């Protein structure tokens, strides 16, 4: 170190340690420009915008606890005799995977708690993603420019399902073994390729000696790796697109109103991480999950009643349970429709969610950017479709637990199954119609509120004896919030003849699109919001209502 350098720094006074570290890092990483661009990034405030955070934090918790579990878990199907501390399994033959999971549960310090945090966090992660996805759906946040991010989120949900499935199959217990057998059956039901895929996956006949080790690689490496990448991409896109916001005074399609990332959101998000961790740890400390010691080791000749998958796969279980056991024989080949149709439906029902943004944008012809969220009532057809989808999903979940519905509500399992069969089709229709009517009713109420004010509940008696309810006019902010949404006109087919008077060929898809567009924006499918003329006219004379 030279003397001159020392002198100058002493003359200016030594910079604080933090600044010197930042300088050091900036010279190597260029963090100043990065921080300058992003530190003051604005995020709007709403509790429902934190659902994604719940997912991200539970994912981090899963990774942290998962690392701990890998230190003690042996992904092997070698048979061993149990000599651990759980008495009711003493001397039983089991796989090393099951044995090591028992070891984690009873003989590793903190093992059971970490296992339970891992498993509870997984259930909550998937539930969080489901609700987060619904929030994005019902507020229309998937519209341009966020369609790709919607797909990333959708992929995260689907990959989360399969990461969860491969995870709970690892202990090689009787319950998960039954689930793996179920999966093998679904794979086998695929025409032509089924047997090949099954033999490839299990390395021969089920269960073989390979699947735990293979699921282990998939569970701890392949799927979480992809998910981590997708999650980062998801977040980068959130930064790039900026967060959506609900309509309100001062909030436009071209700005974001909220708090800066630093320091407000850093503090909030950091604190929220610990809250999420705390809640999940508390649940894991209080409630038992997947007690594999009570379930017992997997053996192909054993099975228990009440064998359900974790909730996010319950939807697949339900599809299988309520599907009639059809099969057809074709030139000596059996096509097990009773399993294959549910397998196809599994993809179709989930795929419908992935495809929805593109379908809606095609129908409505809306290609503009949207940064202001819709209130669900202002998009009655979309909201109706969403509720119909959720209804279908929930009915299928009921089907997946049909035996527990039967025993706990003293019903016949056949009656529950038939209910599910019928309501799988009827339920979504009822839900769609009811939701749409409710949305339109709420739109009418908003219209009334804008034009006539808020009902105060105060009854006034006029001098001539008439009773009226006093309506209080809304504030300017409220009026803005209730009337700021855009109302679209349905897409027209266009003139039947072109500018030269030649008859134009109208394609079937154009006709279909016009019809569907009418279902979204047609006369009966949205209530015209009050215009300023209407508002002026009605509020010009006082005392009218």
């Amino acid at each position, binding site marked *: 170190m030279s003397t001159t350098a020392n002198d100058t720094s002493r003359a200016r006074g030594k910079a604080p340690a933090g600044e010197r570290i930042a300088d050091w890092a900036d010279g190597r990483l260029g963090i100043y420009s990065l921080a300058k661009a992003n530190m003051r990034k604005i995020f709007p405030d709403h509790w429902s915008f934190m659902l994604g955070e719940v997912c991200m934090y539970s994912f981090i918790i899963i990774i942290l606890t998962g690392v701990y579990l890998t230190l003690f878990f042996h992904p092997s199907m070698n048979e061993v005799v149990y000599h651990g501390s759980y008495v009711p399994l003493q001397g039983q033959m089991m796989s090393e995977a099951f044995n090591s999971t028992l070891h984690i549960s009873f003989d590793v310090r903190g093992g059971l708690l970490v296992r339970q945090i891992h498993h509870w966090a997984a*259930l909550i992660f998937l539930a969080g993603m489901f609700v987060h996805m619904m929030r994005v759906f019902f507020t229309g946040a998937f519209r341009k420019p966020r369609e790709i991010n919607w797909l990333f989120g959708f992929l995260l949900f689907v990959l989360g399902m399969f990461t969860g499935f491969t995870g709970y199959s690892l202990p090689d217990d009787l*319950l998960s073994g039954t689930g793996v057998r179920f999966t093998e059956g679904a794979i086998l039901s695929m025409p032509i390729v089924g047997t090949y895929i099954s033999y490839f996956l299990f390395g021969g006949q089920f269960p073989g000696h390979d699947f735990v080790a293979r699921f282990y690689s998939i569970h701890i490496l392949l799927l979480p790796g992809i998910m981590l990448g997708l999650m980062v991409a998801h977040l980068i896109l959130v930064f790039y697109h900026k967060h959506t916001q609900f309509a309100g005074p001062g909030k436009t399609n071209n700005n974001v109103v909220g708090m800066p990332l630093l320091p407000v959101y850093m503090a909030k998000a950091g604190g929220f991480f610990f809250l999420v961790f705390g809640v999940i740890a508390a649940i894991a400390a209080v409630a038992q999950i997947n007690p594999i010691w009570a379930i017992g080791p997997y053996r192909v000749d054993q099975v228990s009643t009440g064998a359900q998958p974790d909730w996010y796969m319950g939807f697949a279980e339900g599809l299988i349970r309520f599907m009639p056991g059809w099969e057809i024989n074709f030139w000596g080949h059996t096509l097990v429709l009773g399993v294959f149709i549910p397998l196809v439906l599994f993809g179709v029902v989930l795929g419908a969610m992935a495809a929805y943004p593109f379908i809606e944008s095609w129908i409505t012809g809306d290609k503009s950017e949207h940064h202001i969220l819709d209130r669900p009532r202002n998009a009655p057809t979309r909201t109706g479709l969403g509720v119909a989808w959720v209804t279908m999903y929930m009915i299928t979940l009921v089907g997946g637990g049909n035996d527990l519905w039967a025993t706990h509500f003293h019903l016949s399992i056949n009656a529950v199954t038939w209910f599910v069969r019928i309501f799988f089709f009827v339920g979504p229709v009822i839900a769609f119609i009811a939701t749409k009517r409710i949305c339109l009713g709420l739109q009418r109420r908003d219209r009334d509120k804008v034009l006539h004010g808020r009902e105060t509940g105060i009854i006034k008696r006029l001098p001539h004896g008439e009773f009226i309810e006093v309506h209080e006019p809304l504030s300017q902010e409220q009026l803005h919030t209730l009337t700021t949404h855009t109302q679209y006109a349905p897409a027209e087919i266009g003139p039947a003849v072109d500018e030269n008077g030649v008859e134009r060929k109208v394609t079937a898809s154009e006709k279909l699109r016009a019809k569907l567009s009418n279902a979204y924006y047609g006369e009966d499918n949205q209530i015209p919001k009050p215009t300023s003329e209407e508002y002026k006219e009605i509020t010009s004379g006082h005392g009218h209502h």
Partner: protein
Amino acid sequence: MKKLSVRRRHPLAAVVVLLLALAATGGLYAAFAPAGKAQADAGSQSLTIKEGKKLFEVGCASCHGTGGQGSSDGPSLVGVGAAAVDFQVGTGRMPAATSQGAQVPRKKTVYTQTQIDQLAAYIASLGAGPVVPTKQQYGPDGADIAKGGELFRTNCAQCHNFTGKGGALTKGKFAPTLEGVDPKHIYEAMQTGPQNMPSFPDTTLSSQNKKDIIAYLHAVDSSETTNPGGLELGGLGPVSEGLFAWIFGLGALIAVAVWVAARTAKAKKS
């Protein structure tokens, strides 16, 4: 030999042959006849049967027929044995309130154990069947819990769930929970196969096997069972766990999110 052939026409020869034949028959009978019945105290046994018959005529005959031969409302009880009576009446399933419904549920017992024994003795007198097990048969001494668990998962879990929490059968029938069921009744149920349950006679599931299963159930599904992980959530597996995760897990987190979002920093001083 000559001596014998000379005396074969003796006036007492027929008597001697008859005596020999009787002794042989009696001896054979004594050697092969069921020991329990032969040694029973005939006097008190017949009195118990008599009392049982009286109870039967009042409480059971309307469905099972006056001689236990059965009717359109109830099956014949000839040959079901004392164990079946002790199980059905001892768990309150019999007398059933009605022959309608998918299945007769367990309910409060209406007879005392003495009365049940009397009924059982009467039914057993109608035809031989499984007898009521002794405490030595169903007690915990000498039981192998782990073996019992293996047997339970192989033979019972299909209907009664991993740890005997019960499950659904077709058309409203069900396999009941085994929690809080008297070990004797579990033994008898295996022996006799009540309602929809298959029977597991000693040839299928030995007495020792039954003892093991009972000991296993006591270990995993009784008031003395400990749950190292915390609340058991009904022991029903992923359905109740999923409900719990949604309601208490995600529910709590959404409540926390609402709380955090409501406590916002002020952008400008006001």
